[in-house]
């Protein structure tokens, strides 16, 4: 049936699109999962009171006032 639609080399065409979809899905999953992991690590460190100097500055000013 697929060969009726896409000719005798339907398998090659379908495989090309399937691999492309899989690789693009993998790239999207990589950026999404990595973002979640970095945000969690950052939140964990900040919850333990570790702050970047630039992020800590406004707090310091408030406490000084």
């Amino acid at each position, binding site marked *: 049936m697929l060969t009726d639609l896409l000719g005798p080399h339907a398998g090659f*065409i379908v495989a*090309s699109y399937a691999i492309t979809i899989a690789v693009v899905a993998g790239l999207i999953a*990589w*950026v999404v999962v990595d973002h979640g992991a970095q945000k969690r690590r950052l939140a964990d*460190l900040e919850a333990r009171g570790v702050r*970047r100097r630039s992020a800590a500055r406004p707090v310091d000013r408030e406490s000084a006032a």
Partner: protein
Amino acid sequence: MAISITALANPTRFLGLVDKAVPWLAGLTALTLLGGLALMVQSPPDYQQGETVRIMYIHVPAAWLSMFTYALMTASALGTLVWRHPLADVSAKAAAPIGAAFTFLALVTGSLWGKPMWGTWWVWDARLTSVLVLFIMYLGLIALWRTIEDPTRAARPAAVLILVGSVNLPIIKFSVDWWNTLHQPASVFRMDGPTIDGSMLTPLLVMAIGFTLMMVTLHLLAMRNEVLRRRVRALGLITAGGAR
């Protein structure tokens, strides 16, 4: 332009820009790719290749992006070495896995196109071999960044290696003109204009724009992740220093 580049040197400002731009870019990418696929479905089969020509609509954009991404990394390497832009190394490092993925797609879809059309999965001709070298360059750079833990120490050797590898870009582009290859010569970007019929050229260009938008979106997201990873590392070092 100089002001905007200077403004982007601030990673926090850059992250804010990414958060604003990505939803629009992702939407535009999806719309362009859907439009390209719709045009591809309506495009006619090739008079020689038949329906197999449909592999072209993903193979060619993937191949273009394999080179475009490396060109972007070359510009980023110059940014690291010449201007020492804080985000240049972040840009190069974030682009490498994306470039490797598109190069892998170009090689695999090319192979899947070559088998029914040329009768072979692979030949060691100049175009295929130089693209394989590009793929190995991407993997080598990813390995380099993973080997040197401190990103500031990895930045310069990676930038030098990227610049050395950029010699391969004109070799890939002109390999089909300089040597006798099984791969066909350029049929879109030619001095005398494209040799592809408009009914196939339009969906090909729309797919290429869609792939490029997708690459830009993924690159911005990967850069955001890399900025966050470096913040996590910096905070981890503060914690380690405090524990001593």
